[in-house]
């Protein structure tokens, strides 16, 4: 919000004149967030990990832990990875008075939530809800399907690929790249942006093969690996996650493939165990956080590990709670509409430094990190899933490097008085 100089000085005088604990309207209020993600089935372990992460950090950030002085309460809903269950869960959450919804496993479901939230907010003024997207990375959600009520705290596919291709640009040993992805929106986007950005930055790189396999169906990746090897690729770029990633890499190791894997999700629950020592030095991950960030983040990760015997990797949760705290303080309210307006364009500090919730499309602009799978050492002590290995930092990309343009034509509702 733009303030004139007079208003600024008045505000400064006012705030300095007030005692240390001003009676803001929102202080002490409880903010309930509904986390709608799978807690059973294929992605159950990831969803449960994220619920625990949310609850863990809600505790840390409640009360004095956030500038608005609010208390965060997280309620988990199991959507069983189904769009209709998600909508029912949303109904239940809204019925209980919850106005903040978070989700992130599956961009398809995130898209469904965006549409449902748009419809609900237009049909039920006074009961608006805000959607805080923690991990759904389809770029369309902040481009063709962008919405004022949707805020994405993960870095989307294009941002990650932008950073990754910047790294590849500086690697002369990479000449022949194979793209293998899951045959759905996320996989398509990864492939599309990889081709686009590589063509732009390293036109000499040959895309020697491209494959789209069905999501979570393939048990035997040997045929795909045989294809990769026959093509002579020295690197593989893949957006695969879960069993699709673990089986792919394992099959590649079995078949003796010596090339490099550039992945998005090597560090997610289940994959580190499967990577093991055989993949040392050859698997990379591009993400907005990593296991060895040091400082407060490291303390939190160790504490999380001790308490849950599980690894914390969904850093966007910290972004969300930070953003909510600052936005609620700025808006002096926990009302969803006011908070949404306050968050749009918000600049705040989080674990990776200063970040910005871009006003144009509600995509968080943040630094990204490229890490490599290797043994633990003194500088990189954190070992996920007790494997004795870790993802060590190779390169950090500033937010402006990873930033990508947007085509979002956002329809903004009128700001409340």
């Amino acid at each position: 919000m733009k303030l004139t100089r007079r208003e600024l000085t008045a505000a400064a005088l006012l705030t300095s004149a007030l005692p240390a604990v001003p009676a803001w309207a929102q202080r002490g209020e409880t903010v309930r967030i509904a986390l709608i993600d799978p807690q059973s089935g294929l992605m159950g372990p990831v969803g449960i990990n994220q619920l625990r992460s949310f609850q863990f950090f809600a505790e840390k950030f409640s009360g004095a832990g956030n500038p608005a002085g609010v208390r965060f309460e997280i309620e988990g809903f199991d959507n069983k990875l189904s769009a209709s269950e998600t909508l029912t869960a949303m109904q239940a959450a809204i019925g209980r008075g919850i106005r903040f919804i978070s989700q992130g496993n599956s961009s398809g479901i995130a898209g469904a939530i965006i549409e449902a939230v748009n419809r609900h907010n237009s049909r039920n003024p006074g009961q608006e809800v805000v959607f805080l997207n923690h991990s759904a990375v389809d770029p369309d959600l902040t481009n063709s399907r962008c919405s004022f009520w949707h805020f994405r705290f993960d870095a989307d596919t294009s941002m990650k690929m932008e950073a990754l291709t910047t790294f590849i640009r500086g690697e002369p040993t990479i000449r022949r790249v194979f793209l293998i992805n899951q045959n759905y929106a996320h996989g398509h986007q990864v492939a599309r942006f990889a081709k686009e950005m590589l063509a732009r930055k390293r036109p000499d790189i040959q895309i020697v093969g491209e494959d789209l396999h069905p999501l979570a169906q393939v048990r035997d990746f040997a045929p795909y690996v045989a294809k990769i090897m026959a093509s002579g690729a020295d690197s593989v770029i893949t957006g695969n996650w879960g069993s699709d990633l673990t089986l792919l890499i394992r099959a590649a190791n079995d078949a003796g493939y010596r090339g490099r894997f550039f992945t998005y999700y090597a560090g997610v629950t289940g994959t580190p165990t499967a990577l093991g020592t055989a993949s040392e030095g050859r698997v990379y991950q591009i993400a907005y956080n990593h296991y060895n960030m040091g400082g407060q983040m490291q303390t939190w990760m160790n504490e999380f590990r001790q308490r849950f015997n599980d690894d914390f990797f969904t850093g966007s949760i910290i972004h969300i709670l930070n953003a909510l705290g600052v936005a609620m303080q700025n808006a002096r309210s926990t009302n969803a509409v006011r908070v949404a307006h306050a968050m749009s364009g918000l600049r705040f500090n989080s674990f990776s430094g200063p970040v910005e919730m871009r006003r144009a499309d509600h995509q968080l602009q943040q630094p990204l990190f490229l890490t490599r799978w290797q043994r633990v050492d003194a500088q990189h002590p954190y070992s996920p899933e007790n494997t004795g290995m870790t993802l060590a930092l190779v390169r950090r990309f500033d937010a402006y490097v990873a930033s990508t343009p947007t085509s979002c034509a956002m329809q903004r509702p009128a700001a409340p008085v």
Partner: protein
Amino acid sequence: MTATKYYQFRPINVGRWFIWSLFALVLLLAPLVFDSSIAISMMAQMGIAIIACLSFNMLLGQGGMLSFGHAVYAGLGTYVAMHALLLLGDAGLPVPAVALIPLVGGLAGLFFALLFGYVTTKKAGTAFAMITLGVGELIFIASMVFFIFFGGEAGVSADRVIGEPFWGISFGPLIEVYYLIAVYTFLCVALMFAYTRTPLGRIINAVRDNPERVEFIGYDPQTVRYLVFMIAGFFAGIAGGMAAVLFEIVTSEVVGPIRSGSYLLFAFLGGVTFFFGPIIGGILMVLAFVMFSEITKAWMLYLGLIFVFMVMYAPGGIAGLIMMNLRLAMFGRLGELWASYLGLGATALALLVSLGALIEMIYHLQLGTAMGDVVPFLGMSLNTLDLDVWFGAVFVALTSFGLFELCRRSFSQQWAAIQTDIEKEIKRRETA
């Protein structure tokens, strides 16, 4: 089973009018009693589930055809209806057109049943089941591969509010959609019941019981099955079309094997030997998926166990149990069993509670140690680390199992004795 005789109330017409009016009244007034939005959403879903399970039972209970892929027809109905809704929105037709969307779904279901039914109904019994499984998997995988029609992982979505409100109705608010679904539910249930009274509805029963004999009286079992398959597909498609209007989004799980399995599970649980069994099944399905899964993490396990025990000991499902006891009541013998039922009920309850406590504690250990060591169970707090709790639960389980067995044996004897008496009485009345 001779129990079907008791399905017709005497005198016939008054009973039938009464039941159907009651049904319509319940549909009409339910939202006034349960008026939270989640309750109305659930009731709308129940309407859809009822039609889907009833259409499934046209195949299983009435036709003896076990289908593992019934969700295909409901799901494809949803997809086609969704595309139709998109077209309607673009064409700028008036709002009442949305009321016809379920019919579009029904026609789509009919079309696909026509297409796949020919191959599917060539065989019966186990082979039929395998074919439906194969076709179901085929469509499910195709739905994840062909993006233009199926929309890929994001699915297909449409807005059900396609224009300006017509006489105040825009189908935006949930309650309006509920009433639309209620009307369709009533009509479809009535139609499906009427179908059971038609010659086709009777012949398919005959095909279920003795296909060879049917051939002798001049009907081709395969043609009969094919026709019934198409009709079942039509009603499944209507259920799918209603789902399209309610959820405004469709994703590939609607044609998946898990959905097909749920139709089977709950239709059977409700009772496949009676017409109203799947209605109970449909209601249970929505309750289980929406509420049960929030109460306990072990709900799938409970469901599987209940299903297996039902198949083994009560193959008529809940409807069968109700009707058997109703028959007893009509012969005035129900009262004698009250003591046995009490004993059975009490020991079964103790057994279930203790087993439930054990299962919940094990699940908690496996999944949720982070949330502390205490499991909330039926208002009690069970500390999973406390050995006393474990011993207590196991002890109660074992003793109540023993007592249950004793009660069950005496109950079986009593029951068998009463059944013989009733059979004699029926014979006597027939000859009298």
